[in-house]
């Protein structure tokens, strides 16, 4: 078996890439996708630990995270479409008011 550190580093790498995406990209959709990537990195950690501890709970939580991701994507994209209809833009730094 591989040492678990491999998985952790992989996960760390994906996480960092995701974080960088979130911070540096202006396009909200790509930001959202980066967030999905971050969630995915977490999933890898969970599944890896689940495998190594022999406890299926990690996979359960990964499953919940996937469900959450789906919900998040649905709502997020809904917001984006609504926003786009109103503002004709999807750039993150043009969204700086809570209400308009």
């Amino acid at each position, binding site marked *: *078996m*591989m*040492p*678990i*550190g*491999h*998985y*952790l*580093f*992989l996960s*760390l*790498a*994906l996480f*960092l*890439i*995701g974080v*960088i995406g979130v*911070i*540096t*990209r*202006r*396009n909200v*959709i*790509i930001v*959202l*996708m*980066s967030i*999905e*990537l971050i969630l*995915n990195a977490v*999933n*890898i950690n969970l*599944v890896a630990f*689940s*495998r*190594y*501890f*022999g406890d*299926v*709970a990690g*996979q*359960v939580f*990964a*499953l*919940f995270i*996937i*469900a959450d*991701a*789906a919900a998040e*994507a*649905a*709502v997020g*994209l*809904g*917001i*984006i*479409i609504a926003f786009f209809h*109103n503002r004709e833009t*999807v*750039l993150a730094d043009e969204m700086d008011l809570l209400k308009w």
Partner: protein
Amino acid sequence: MLDSVIFYFFAGIAVISAALMVTRRNAIHSAVFLITTLLATAGIFLQLRAEFLFIAQIILYVGGIMVLFIFVIMLVRLDVPLPQIRSGLQKWIALFVALTVGVEAGVVIFLARKAPGQGLLIPNPAPADKLPPNTEELANSLFRSYLLPFEIASVLLLVAMVGAVVMAKKRTEAP
């Protein structure tokens, strides 16, 4: 040996395409690379013998969420490249901080790995052919120990669905 080959194969794809995803100017391309990353992650799941999660990843993420993303990208016509990377000081601070976090976390993991005798070298995971059927085990855990979270998750999905429908609906009174 086969395991590590498979792992490195998928991990490489995942990292590379993740990097490509963040750097592509075209949103559709980003999406395609994200799909690739996700598929690679699914492969890693399979390598970890999480079969159900593997297929859930494919069905939900790739088959569901990503199609949605692509759909929306096309819908709001974001397929034309935009000035994507934000400029200015914040970007550099951000990159610096992100890298700091990465280095810190890497050091933590690495040092923990290096510790003699114990640590992250987890005591013998069960061999792959001795594992119980993954789906049944997952179902048992999900519907016995985690029934309430499961139901809450379903409510969450319902709420998300309603919310998405409401938000995406045409407003009758134009702003």
